[in-house]
């Protein structure tokens, strides 16, 4: 039984996704309970997997017993196990949160299908992370993307449909490029297993086919990571999606794509190829620096809080790619830590915004005036996560930025150090605007007829109070983790260090 744990992480949410719409026909709330249980099981299993990896170093699972490279292999090492835990853990937290949020934002007869799609999304994410087969990675990428398009389209405003459509077009292009890259690799190596490819490719580094394949992978995954200038799908998708969907996507979607990016670059193609053959790192360095600055500047220009957070995600993706582009052990360690940290911080921020939407129905930064008093716990969580985004010491944001700055100094790239500091300053600007509204500006009473109809939960602003417990707990837990891992970052650090040593072997 124990040896089948890797596949169960995928199978449990996948099969539950099929059962959920049926359960919803019996009783609506069953759908949520099933979602909750299966994400909890998946989360527990992946933590168990991480412990197994820490004991034994590597877990290899052969699907239906076919020996790799012929069969599909699920290869779990420190890197996957780490990202897998982040994905499934946030999948569970957002599932807890989703109940109230979905009751409020999704039409009642659609909840069953909504939870099924949510589970498929989490399945896809976990699958991308766990698989050791490059074609399987493409399939899971599409499962997660297709579920993602549908989830965004559920959003209440009609702009959600256009956002979903645009994401679908760009996302499909990205997936097609990944598929083509896979085909090119198969053409010259005859293999699809990542470890096997890694062994066969060094002899073929001079081949134009391999170089083209790499270009396809970088562009395709670049779209999924939302690396500037391939980020255009992201802001509207995050803004118009339902709150729970924005939270899970912002927290895990781009991170998993970043994982796939790291995996393909370092494990499949290898560092020698990436540095000496194509000079990818210079290109990525420039793009990530532009992403960090452009994302922050555009975030300052926004009046809608969800859009502001979405643009801030683009600059955070820049951080992750920057660490990869610096290509030193410290830099990649910073990237891996930032995958965890940004998942916690951005997840927490979007969860708070979802709570505000639940209580007031409003998403403009102006509307946050005086909420610090009305929703004290949620807003305390928001403040912690915002400080962490800025990179204040004792929060997780500081830890990963510290390693990124160290890596930049090690490589002697002083302009990059300046960019990192400048972007922290820019982040302080746009988060301060919100925090200022929260605590230091008195609330204005809007005229009753101006309030949007979706604010049915609180027609009177005096009734605005903290989010219900089911929404509050996931928010508080993610905010607490931001501080806990900020003060004692040893566990994620140790795992990230091991992962780096495997990647740069």
């Amino acid at each position, binding site marked *: 039984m124990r040896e089948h744990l890797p596949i169960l992480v995928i199978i449990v949410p996948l099969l539950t996704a099929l059962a959920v719409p049926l359960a919803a026909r019996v009783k609506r709330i069953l759908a949520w309970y099933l979602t909750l249980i299966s994400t909890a099981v998946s989360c527990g299993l992946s933590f168990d997997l991480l412990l197994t990896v820490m004991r034994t170093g590597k877990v290899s699972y052969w699907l239906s017993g076919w020996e790799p490279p012929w069969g599909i292999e699920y290869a779990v090492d420190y890197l996957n196990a780490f990202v897998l835990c982040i994905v499934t853990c946030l999948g569970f937290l957002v599932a807890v949160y989703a109940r109230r949020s979905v009751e409020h934002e999704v039409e009642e007869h659609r909840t069953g299908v909504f939870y099924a799609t949510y589970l498929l999304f989490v399945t896809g994410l976990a699958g991308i992370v766990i698989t050791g087969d490059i074609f399987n990675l493409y399939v899971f990428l599409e499962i997660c993307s297709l579920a993602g398009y549908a989830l965004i389209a559920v959003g209440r405003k009609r702009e959600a449909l*256009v956002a979903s459509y645009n994401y679908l077009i760009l996302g499909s292009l990205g997936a*097609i490029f990944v598929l083509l890259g896979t085909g090119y690799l198969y053409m010259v190596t005859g293999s699809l297993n990542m470890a096997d490819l890694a062994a066969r490719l060094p002899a073929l580094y001079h081949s134009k086919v391999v170089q083209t394949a790499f270009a396809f992978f970088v562009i395709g995954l670049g779209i999924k990571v939302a690396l500037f200038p391939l980020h255009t799908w992201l802001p509207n998708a995050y803004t118009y999606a339902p709150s729970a969907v924005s939270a899970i996507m912002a927290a895990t979607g781009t991170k998993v794509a970043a994982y796939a990016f790291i995996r393909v670059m370092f494990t499949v193609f290898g560092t020698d190829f990436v540095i000496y053959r194509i000079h990818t790192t210079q290109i990525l360095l420039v793009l990530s620096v532009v992403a960090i600055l452009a994302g922050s500047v555009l975030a300052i220009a926004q009046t809608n809080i969800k859009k502001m957070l979405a643009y801030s995600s683009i600059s955070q993706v820049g951080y992750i790619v920057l660490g990869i582009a610096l290509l030193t052990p410290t830099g990649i360690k910073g990237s891996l830590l930032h995958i965890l940290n940004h998942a916690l911080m951005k997840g927490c921020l979007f969860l708070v915004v979802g709570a505000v939407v639940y209580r007031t129905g409003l998403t403009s930064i102006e509307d946050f005036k005086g909420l610090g008093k009305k929703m004290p716990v949620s807003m305390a969580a928001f403040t912690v996560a915002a400080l962490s985004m800025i990179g204040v010491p004792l929060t997780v944001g500081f830890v990963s930025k510290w390693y990124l700055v160290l890596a930049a100094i090690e490589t002697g790239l002083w302009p990059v150090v300046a960019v990192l500091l400048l972007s922290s300053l820019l982040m302080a600007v746009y988060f301060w605007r919100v925090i200022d509204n929260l605590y230091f500006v008195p609330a204005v009473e809007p005229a009753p007829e101006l309030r949007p109809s979706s604010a049915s939960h609180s027609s009177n602003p005096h009734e605005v109070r903290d989010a219900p417990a089911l929404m509050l707990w996931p928010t508080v837990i993610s905010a607490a983790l931001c501080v806990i891992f900020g003060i004692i970052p040893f566990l994620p650090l140790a795992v990230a260090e091991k992962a780096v040593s495997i990647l740069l072997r």
Partner: protein
Amino acid sequence: MTEFILGKYNYWIYIVLMMTGFYAVIAKKNLLKKLIGLNILQTAVFLFYISIAKVRGGTAPIFLEGAEVIYDNPLPHVLILTAIVVAVSTTAVALAIVILIKQAYGTVEEDQILEMTEEG
């Protein structure tokens, strides 16, 4: 040179088809035409995969008792079956979204939708 152009004609078709689809996805303003472009693009990729599976003089990969058969590589065929399923689902989801867009905006022309978004 002739060998490069004629001998690899399937790859040339793949490239032409792919660029046609790519152009339609980028340049067309009609949401449905964009989707058709995406479909052409996906079909081009299928053709590419089928091409790399071909073995000179090969036949269908069926095992015959006692006969030596040269057969095409069946693995890309299987891979592309999966990709076809994915393409069909993508088209289905996209069409569903386009129908909803038509209901919400009354049009499937991108520039008109953009105008309405800016007004609202």
